[in-house]
């Protein structure tokens, strides 16, 4: 009994230590700080209540990511039953013109990430924000490592195009926050 209690405490501590990264991840999926908080809180509570079903403690983060992803999917389903979440692109300022009002490069990159399909966004955020290895991404998304690699490759290619388009739009409109002195 004490061993189990000690394990639970250890896992809870590890989860708490990763919470900011989970929050960033949820924010990258939703673009909404309050919703990101809700999803992380929900996922972490579910994780804590289900520690007994986690077979390998070293996979805690990948396992919790899967729970977080399910929480997000549940939210999407509740929000709009007719949207296929695999093809879902959330509409957080994804009108190309809205790029023009982006305050800085980071906001523009976030908007481009928001425009990726869910599959692409998941893999890129797990690798770059959660700093997961490909193996951990494969565990979190329950897909083979080969698929992780090809999906990541396509995701980055698409992101690069979106960023290039957004930058061109900004230059063309000449209302970029960057001033030019020649």
């Amino acid at each position, binding site marked *: 009994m004490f061993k189990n209690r000690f394990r639970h405490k250890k896992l809870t501590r590890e989860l708490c230590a990763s919470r900011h990264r989970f929050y960033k991840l949820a924010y990258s999926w939703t673009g909404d700080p309050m919703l990101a908080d809700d999803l992380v*809180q929900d996922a972490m509570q579910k994780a804590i209540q289900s520690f007994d079903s986690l077979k390998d403690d070293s996979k805690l983060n990948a396992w919790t990511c899967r729970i977080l992803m399910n929480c997000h999917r549940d939210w999407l389903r509740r929000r709009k039953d007719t949207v296929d979440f695999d093809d879902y692109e959330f509409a957080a300022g994804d009108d190309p013109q809205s790029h023009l009002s982006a305050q800085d*490069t980071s906001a523009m990159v976030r908007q481009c990430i928001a425009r990726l399909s869910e599959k692409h966004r998941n893999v890129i955020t797990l690798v770059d924000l959660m700093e997961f290895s490909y193996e951990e991404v494969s565990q979190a998304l329950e897909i083979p490592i080969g698929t992780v690699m090809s999906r990541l490759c396509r995701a980055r290619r698409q992101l690069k195009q979106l960023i290039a388009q957004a930058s061109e739009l900004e230059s063309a409109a000449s209302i970029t926050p960057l001033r030019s002195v*020649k």
Partner: protein
Amino acid sequence: MHNPKTSSEISDELLNSFVDRQLTSEERQEILHRLKQDRKLSDRVCELQHLKEMTRLAYDDIPPSKLPKRIAGERDSWPRMAAAALIFGLGLLLGMIGLPQWSGGDDRSGLAASTPADAHTTKVLVHLSSADPQAALNTLGNLEQMLADYRKRGEPVRVEVIANGDGIKLLGPGTPAIAGRIAALTREYDNLSFAACRNTLEQLQLTEGRHIRLIPQVRLIDSGVVEVIRRQKEGWAYIRG
């Protein structure tokens, strides 16, 4: 991993794995070896690294989480409560004994992130990424005018010129007109500084075998792009030189 022959034979998947540090040591060595010989390959790696860095940095300044530090339902443990009681008791005791006044004292730590004076300082970042010497001379001319103008009006300003990409080639002794101008400007204005991107320098050495010896007024920073993004986030005005 099969032995790659040319840049085009190395797949994007493999380069992504390289950038994400997912390769074995041997595979990594093989790619590093190819990078020294293949400019196109090196450009592809740079692009991927840049993209990765931009993604990572994009979420550094998002609104902070409003969640409490601890997860709801997590119970206090006795050691934590005892420690809290101890700290409270100590605080009470110190309060009763009396401590030197902290407020209004000098901050000698040098760690104050932003002082009132700093808040009133105009901060300008000039990004030098082109190797056009005439354009750079024009930019330096504009900067001098601006610095003189602020000095005349008695308004504080800080200017930092960050060079990366081809712009770095202008910060060596190979362009004496620019080097001379930089030396004169930094002598005259201590609120003007120059920085160069270490990544670009290393890249130039790998791809073109060129070692650029920077003039002494230029300090080295790890990544020009990261620094530019960071400064923009901190509210610095951005000027492309």
